Structure formats: C-alpha cells, structure tokens
C-alpha cells in the first residue's frame, strides 16, 4: 500500500519570498510522483511529475521538485512566489504497475501575501 504525507496544511509566505512545500511518501513498490495544484473554484491541474531520469523536475511557472529516494521525499520549491501562486497544492503517488490510480496527500494551502 502507498501513503503520502504533506506535513504543512497551510504555508503563509510574502510575495517574492522562496517557498518549500514538503511531501513524504511511503510505498513498498516503485512509484511515480506528482504535484497537482488547485486554484480557487477550479479543478486539480498537474503541476509537475517525476517518472524516471533526472531527479529534479520543473514546471513552466517556476516550480521545481526533487525526488529523493533515500528520504522518500518529493518536496516542491519555488525561489520567488507571486500572488497568483495562491492555491492548494497536492502531492500524489501512483504505483508504476498501476492503471493510473493516484494516492494523494492532504494538501497544502499556499497563501501568498503582498
């Protein structure tokens, strides 16, 4: 079985400050890793994913996440946040042998303040 833990339910940060949203997972099998974002009144959108290869993956809007197998982590970072980054962020895993089922963490609300 797999589980995902997002330790921070809310992360307040000032605009242009760096941010890290933490994600740890537990799994007895190989998994793929994902970050989804949910803006207010919208559905979940894929932000970035790790399938294989380089352990550092990037999104088009400046977020990056690094897969750390030894620490079973997939933390999300951004060096300088914008007001528009205010949203809920979900970390998720999916077994590599599966049909696409995602196992989500509890979510972290990123609140960017001016």
């Amino acid at each position, binding site marked *: 079985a797999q589980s*995902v833990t997002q330790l921070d339910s809310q992360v307040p940060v000032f605009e242009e400050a760096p941010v890290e949203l933490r994600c740890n997972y537990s799994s007895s099998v190989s998994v793929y890793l994902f970050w989804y974002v949910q803006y207010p009144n919208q*559905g979940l959108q894929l932000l970035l994913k790790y399938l294989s290869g380089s352990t550092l993956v990037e999104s088009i809007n400046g977020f990056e996440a690094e897969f750390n197998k030894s620490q079973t982590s997939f933390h999300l970072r951004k060096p300088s946040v914008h007001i528009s980054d205010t949203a809920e962020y979900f970390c998720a895993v999916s*077994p590599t042998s599966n*049909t*696409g089922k*995602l196992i989500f963490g509890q*979510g972290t609300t990123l609140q960017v303040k001016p």
Partner: protein
Amino acid sequence: EPEVTQTPSHQVTQMGQEVILRCVPISNHLYFYWYRQILGQKVEFLVSFYNNEISEKSEIFDDQFSVERPDGSNFTLKIRSTKLEDSAMYFCASSQAGRTGTEAFFGQGTRLTVV
C-alpha cells in the same frame, strides 16, 4: 482547450436519497476516474473505469456506489442511498491511457451535501 466538465457544481440531498453525479470527460480519453475529498481530509481514489467496466476500485466504493458510461460522452457516479458521511467534494478525471504517468485531467468537482 479541452476540459473535464462536472455537473452540478453543488448538490444538496436528503439522507437516504439517490444521487447521480455527472461528468463529461475529454472526448478522446479512454480511462475515467472518480475521487472524493471529505472536508479537511485527503483526496481519495474511488474507482477507475476502462472499456465499459471497472478496472479498479477502493474499499470506499461499496455496493451503494456504481458508475456508468451511458453514452459516448457522459460518465456518472451514482450513490443509491446517501449517508451523512458521503458529504464531500467529488472529482471526476480522465486520461488518454491508463499507464501511470499519463496526465489525468480533473474536473472542477461536485460538492455533495447530505442533510
């Protein structure tokens, strides 16, 4: 840009009533999913559906739940006799292929309130 559409956005129903949540997946997608999120808790997988049958379901997806693709465009989740604990946000998702890693596109969700 193609998107997954869910209706209604908010549904209020009395305990014991049947409810149907509707989803229109992206047209060329083949795999369909339902997830739910109880307020303050994790987004939980309910069921995946491919080729007109359930490919995987969670322990939550008991006999009171059913899914159907009644025509070429809709994908529905039916709850036969709603309970208070069914109150949650329900998300529909679809993907082109079920191979993990293929992006799943999510709808905006239906907030179900059972009173």
